[in-house]
């Protein structure tokens, strides 16, 4: 039991310690998966940007060098628009299992002079175009090296195939009502062709021939250039699943999800409810804290200061500052309880060795603007500082530093203070 508990706590401690890195790892994995899922277009089999062995990137590159502009269409709608836009451009329909919708097939069957190449590895495209003949699917050709190469054949009517001479890729074989090219033998149906001509266009059963892996084998490159490189524009249409539906009837995304997603979603919803119950249950009632009353100090002074400012009370502020400084000067200069203003000025002037008239002028100033008030307040503070410094020079040791402001403000006369200082001195000598 102890071991389990220790193991459990070790795991928990470990989890707590590595929590950040675990989360980072999970996030990293998720972002990699997301990037992967966003990039999967390039991983498509026979994708024009796919540089893997089964991609068409090499073919696309060569066509681009030949100044053939490839217009890709992801849906029948886009393909139709492109066909209207480029009336002369050849159309390539590449089927990898999905087929175009019925309307598009109809359009293909009744096409104008536009060259059309149908690429399909299986029977789907042919079946969709001609469910009841005249052409039909004949089976697969296994491919497998130069020994299994298919010859174009003497009766081949297609110039591209004649020029390519051979193909050796695996693919589908078809029976056509007219002579075709690349004759092979399927096991159950006998002689059949990989390239046949239909009303809808040239149907080629070996799209694997144009992959990055196989494009350089046999006559594949020649065939590709003859088929796709004839014009400056090329419309490249790869049917998707959605194309088989009506334009008006869009598929629900749910149709493409695995079966277990919906039940799992419901279950996870239930788990969220459980989580709310688990985490929401308090370990006990809420505990209150009776808070004491507290008022910030100097609140009154702050309020009054703000009031002075909002009322632009320059004159009252100046008067207050002046009286405050006079009271302090009187105390600094030891002029008794209630000295006359004139005697304070005279004593201060003596102390700082300045002209009494000048000091009187300074004190009598009546500021009218904020800037004047600031200057007035500063000069008053400066005067007090000067007097204090002079007093300290005249009577060193009579005051402790800042005594005028706080020491004397503490309810002691200066004589009391000296007395106490002496006592303290005796203390130290005793200790």
């Amino acid at each position, binding site marked *: 039991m102890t071991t389990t508990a220790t193991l459990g706590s070790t795991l928990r401690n470990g989890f707590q310690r590595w929590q950040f890195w675990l989360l980072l790892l999970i996030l990293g994995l998720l972002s990699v998966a997301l990037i992967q899922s966003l990039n999967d277009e390039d991983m498509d089999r026979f994708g024009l940007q796919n540089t893997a062995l089964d991609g068409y990137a090499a073919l696309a590159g060569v066509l681009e060098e030949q100044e053939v502009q490839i217009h890709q269409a992801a849906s029948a709608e886009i393909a139709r628009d492109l066909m209207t836009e480029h009336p002369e451009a050849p159309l390539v329909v590449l089927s990898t299992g999905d087929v175009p919708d019925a309307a598009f097939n109809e359009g293909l069957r009744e096409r104008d002079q536009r060259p059309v190449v149908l690429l399909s590895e299986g029977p789907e495209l042919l079946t969709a175009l001609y469910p009841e003949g005249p052409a039909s699917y004949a089976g697969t050709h296994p491919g497998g090296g130069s020994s299994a190469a298919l010859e174009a054949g003497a009766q081949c009517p297609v110039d591209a195939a004649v020029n390519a001479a051979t193909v050796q890729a695996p693919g589908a074989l078809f029976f056509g009502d007219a002579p075709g090219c690349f004759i092979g033998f399927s096991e159950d149906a006998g002689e059949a062709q990989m390239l046949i001509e239909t009303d809808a266009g040239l149907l080629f059963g070996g799209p694997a021939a144009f992959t990055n892996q196989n494009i350089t084998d046999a006559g594949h490159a020649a065939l590709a250039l003859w088929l796709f490189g004839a014009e400056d524009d090329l419309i490249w249409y790869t049917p998707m699943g959605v194309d088989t539906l009506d334009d008006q009837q869009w598929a629900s995304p749910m149709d493409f999800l695995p079966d277990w997603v919906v*039940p799992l979603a419901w279950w996870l919803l239930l788990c969220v409810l*459980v989580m709310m119950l688990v985490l929401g249950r308090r*370990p*006990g009632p809420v505990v209150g804290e009776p808070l004491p009353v507290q008022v910030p*100090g100097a609140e009154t002074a702050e309020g009054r200061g703000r*009031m002075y400012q909002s009322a632009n009370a320059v004159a009252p502020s100046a008067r207050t500052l002046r009286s405050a400084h006079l009271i302090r000067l009187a105390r600094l200069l030891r002029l008794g309880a209630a000295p006359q203003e004139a005697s304070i000025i005279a004593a201060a002037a003596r102390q700082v060795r300045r002209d009494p008239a000048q000091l009187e002028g300074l004190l009598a100033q009546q500021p009218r603007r904020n800037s004047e008030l*600031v200057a007035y307040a500063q000069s008053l503070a400066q005067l007090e500082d000067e007097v204090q410094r002079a007093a300290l020079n005249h009577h060193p040791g009579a005051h402790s530093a800042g005594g005028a402001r706080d020491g004397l403000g503490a*309810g002691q006369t200066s004589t009391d203070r000296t007395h106490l200082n002496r006592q303290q001195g005796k*203390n130290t000598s005793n200790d």
Partner: protein
Amino acid sequence: MVLTRRFLYVALGLSAVVVVFPAPGTLLGCAVLLILLAAVDMVLAGSPRSVRVERVPTAEVRLGQATTASTTVYQAGSRPLRGQVKDGWQPSAGARAQISPIRLGPGRSNGPNGSAARIQTARIETALRPTRRGDLHSEHLSLRSIGPLGLAGRQVTHRVRHTLRVLPPFHSRRHLPSKLQRLRELDGATAVQIRGAGHEFDSLRDYVRGDDVRSIDWRATARRQSSQGQHLVVRTWRPERDRRVIIALDSSRTSAVRIEDEPRLDSGMEAALLLGALAAGAGDRVDYFSFDRGLSSQARSGMRGDLLHQMAEAMSTVEPRLVEADFSQLPGQIRAISSQRSLLVVLTSLDSGSLEEGLLPVLPALTQRHLVVLAAVRDPELDRRARARETAGEVYRAAAAERALIEKEALRRQLASLGVEVVEAAPHQLPPQLADTYIRLKASGRL
């Protein structure tokens, strides 16, 4: 009902089953399974209701000290109990880990001689570091009992109150030794005497350098003539003992003001404690009370036990109240304590509003019979504001601060004219300065 995290993990684990068998039936089955598991676990869990909770009384602590609160849980149920306990201390009690695990055996002993009785009780210790003065409470103890599967359980809150009394910190205690030393000097215990230290004749002794020549007793000197010459003899005086010191602490609205980092009331408490300790050490009788509209706490010198402790305990639960102080009852309170002349120390604020209307009218009655000292906390913020003069806004604020200072100064003069000693100092300076004032008054024999 309680569900645990393990229950959540089991539920999340069952999502694998849902993925493998995606059908509505699976969902239903999993849900039923979960509910069954939780129900079974809940039924099998030991009953959290059948325990008895007993709080172990805690000793008082000073603010800033750590302590441990203990609770004993007695098991009376027949099933073992496993789970967690939460002690519901209020936040300012500073409980470090409020939730602690608990494991109790079955209440009825099955073994011989009640051998299982040993595991029937569990002691829950909660480490506390209070951050506030006063009576701190834990109103309840919540017991969560988890079943054997660890998936679900039951929870019950037992409402049993636990109280911890937190006394004022008495930071000013550090000043006490030096102030007591000063008192001893007054007391004649040390060689150096201070002139005029008391009026009570203590003893005669030889003159030593530094003694006041005025204290030489010429008659005694004449009696001690010897062959080697004269031995000067001085009289020593000792300060009066058994004087009364009455400390009145104002706990009205003005005491709620926070200056620097503590309310005025707390600074006053510090000062009162230091003065109380000092005066008690000097042999005076100290009485303390706090008041707002009425008496809010008191400690009398006649009470048994250590006075300082009684004062601290009485103070601990005092909180500022937003009411105007009723100074008119002060003379009555003091008469009730003592009829003899006393040193009355009023710890309040130099707030013109409250003092002019409240204290000043009753002061003559007080000063007539007693020596009154008014101690108040000075706000250093006002001085800082009065000095800042860079911008117009600062100057206006400086003017406002100066005005407050002028008002205070006027009030002090008025009080001084009535014979009141005023001690005003910054929060941390107030206790030593009040102590100094006391020593000075004692030295000059004014008590």
